[in-house]
């Protein structure tokens, strides 16, 4: 387990990178460091943040989920259909969206665990299935919803941030606590480190593995609800490519793709960095292709930095071990 001062130092380092980005864009563009930028940032973040949080847990067990963007799109679409076509109450539509996400995630987990298929493949299939269902359910049309869903993404007067942002923070805090303080979290880290050793220690790894995919499905559903409320309409194309942004945010936060190591709080910093980068580049007038090139460079750079820092730590530890144990 990482000691508290070390953990704080890591958080501070990521905060530093984020502040550095803000300062850089502030210098490049007069209009960047304004309230408008921050409220648009705060508006974009919740759906990516909750998905990236769930993705962190999936990567920690050594899995991956490529279907999150499609599932988010499907959940948003179902919500739109429920509200606009079926005239269901808003809370029913929301629960329906969350339920669909949970089912999709559970299917991912069950299939990959019981048929021993790599999660990469199963979720690749789910990516297609969920997107197809999103188009089918909406007839490939964007549905305008408007006022019933918008309050969730509107800033709370006097507080300046939306209920969605508060809920995302709540999800992040709960997930981090679950990861570092609960039996579930311990199982995830152990499974991601060495599943065979976990099995031989008398722990059945299957329930935790399924649960973590189910949870990510549920969070993708929540992301769909946030996304729908932000736009005031449901769009079957929503969340296209979100899986890549989410994975990028997670690895920028230093979670290992090999499993066994990761932090939800640092993923949140990864989300901040990605969102700020996108907003900032848009502000300084970078073209869409340029934005993508720069974002790609930042992702790879961040991971190289993390790998280098991690090796350095491991080496430092080893020489320390030698000194205390001659």
């Amino acid at each position, binding site marked *: 387990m990482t000691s508290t001062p070390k953990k704080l130092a890591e958080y501070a380092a990521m905060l530093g990178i984020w502040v550095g980005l803000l300062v850089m864009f502030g210098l490049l563009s007069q209009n960047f460091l304004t309230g408008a930028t921050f409220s648009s940032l705060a508006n974009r973040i919740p759906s990516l943040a909750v998905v990236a949080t769930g993705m962190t847990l999936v990567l920690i067990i050594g899995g991956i989920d490529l279907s999150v963007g499609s599932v988010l799109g499907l959940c948003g679409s179902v919500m739109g259909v429920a509200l606009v076509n079926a005239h269901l109450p808003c809370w029913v539509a929301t629960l329906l969206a969350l339920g669909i996400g949970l089912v999709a995630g559970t299917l991912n987990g069950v299939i990959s665990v019981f048929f021993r298929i790599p999660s990469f493949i199963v979720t690749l299939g789910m990516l297609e299935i969920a997107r197809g269902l999103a188009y089918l359910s909406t007839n490939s049309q964007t549905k305008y919803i408007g006022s019933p869903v918008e309050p969730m993404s509107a800033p709370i007067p006097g507080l300046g941030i939306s209920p969605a942002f508060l809920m995302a923070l709540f999800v992040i805090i709960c997930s981090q606590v679950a990861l570092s303080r609960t039996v579930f*979290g311990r199982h995830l880290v152990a499974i991601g480190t060495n599943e065979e050793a976990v099995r031989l220690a*008398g722990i059945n790894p299957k329930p935790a593995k399924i649960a973590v995919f189910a949870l990510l499905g549920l969070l993708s559903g929540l992301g769909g609800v946030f996304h729908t409320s932000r736009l005031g309409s449901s769009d079957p194309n929503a969340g296209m490519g979100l899986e890549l942004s989410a994975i990028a945010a997670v690895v920028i936060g230093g979670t290992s793709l090999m499993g066994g190591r990761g932090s939800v709080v640092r993923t949140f910093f990864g989300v901040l960095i990605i969102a700020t980068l996108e907003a900032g580049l848009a502000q300084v007038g970078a073209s869409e292709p340029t934005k993508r090139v720069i974002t790609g460079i930042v992702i790879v750079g961040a991971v190289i930095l993390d790998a280098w820092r991690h090796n350095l730590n491991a080496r430092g530890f080893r020489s320390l071990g030698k000194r*205390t144990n001659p």
Partner: protein
Amino acid sequence: MENPAPLLQVKGLVKSYNVPVLVDFDFSLRPGEVHALVGSNGAGKSTFARILSGLTLPDGGSMQILGRPYSPRSKREAEDAGVTMVLQELNVIGTLSVAENIFLNCLPRTAGFIRYHVLHEATRRALDRVGLAHVSPSTPASALGMGQQQLVEIAGILARNSRLIILDEPTAALTDPEIEQLFANIRRLQSEGVGIIYISHRMDEIQRIADRITVMRDGRMVATHTATDVIPSQLIREMVGHDLTERNPLDAGPTGGWALQVENLTSADVLHQVSFGVRHGEILGIAGLIGSGRTETLRAIFGADAKDGGEIIVNGQQATINNPQDALRAGIGLVPEDRKHQGLLLPQSILINTTLSTIPGHANRFGWMDSSAEAATTKDFCDRLEVRCSSSGQPVRELSGGNQQKVVIARWLARDCGILLFDEPTRGIDAAAKDTIHQLLRDLAGQSKALVVVSSELLELMAVCDRILVLSRGRITAEFTPSTWTQEKVTQAAFAGYLDTRESKQTT
């Protein structure tokens, strides 16, 4: 026979990892000769084979091939000199064709394109030499049986003009007709002047195929015999040597009731109706050659592998054990053979590793971990087992082998398992730490736990066990107590299942 120049002449070969593995080892091989190499586990056979085939460098000594100095620094250099080893695990790539497998590192090509007609022509010739003329060169290797795959590998070796072939337990996975085919090929190779070093446990096969037999013990050459002049029991006596110092017979044997009884444990091809019992306070050793079913026995009891039949009785009560969770509930713990891959979470802390099997015991009913209780447990067991570490947060990867093993043991003690299964508890551990582990095993027995210990080191078993069972080809062939065991008798029993492999095959 006149005395032809030796194909291979080895003089005074020396190699040691922490302990000496080869000591002044001498060996010679004539062209067209099959020279068998026998010895117990750890006698140095594999090390010698690895040195010959360029996989390991010797510390000293000289080797000559046809009078020229030979000191391969890589597998490639050995192959260039005409020396090749057929490994126990085959090196065949199932998805590639037979032809591609045979010529993998020298595919005939033009500008990077494989010239298939040349390749297949050469392959047909190579296959013909090993009696596989009916196999098409384009067959995927995975479509062939184990025996044919082995022949394909041998064909590949011949195609590269090998003069010296090392076969390490070549018949382990073969059926009787396949063995006959292999032997026919060995004879053909002999007639072509190829020298063969044949490493095997199976005395009957050695006597059939070998011209000379060299016995190894503790890295030395003990004796070389003409195959027709020697009987198996003499070879076994030489493998063991004189009985070394043994432990004083126990003051009093364990008197507790049965902690664990195993009845007719069976697992296809690996275990045949294995039955035994361990009492509280007893250390039961299981001896046997590698591959005799020792590890499989422990894993089947623990539920790590599926079994085909047999009953496990814990403290007089029938226990259904289908997976490790069941074993844990029955109070059985396993310290696995490969501690790095099966036992430990290497990058994680000592604390996480120690409490891995007691997570529920360190959490409240809402699943909240009690980290101070975990720290207390970890400290308690690290102190009791004298784990040398900087803190309980230190990753186990940084610990020495002995201390890593103690962490695995601590995990089961924290769980308070009454029955502990140890698979090679001191493998890769230095002598001092070995002693500590031995002491620990005796202490555990003193606390009336029941222990089953599998080890390749007979002396280790004799030092710690109250009783030794011997497994041979998946069957129990003997049981010894301190007053009846000798290294020779145990070794004899370990080879018993391999003495006449044909007969035992017919009875199964």
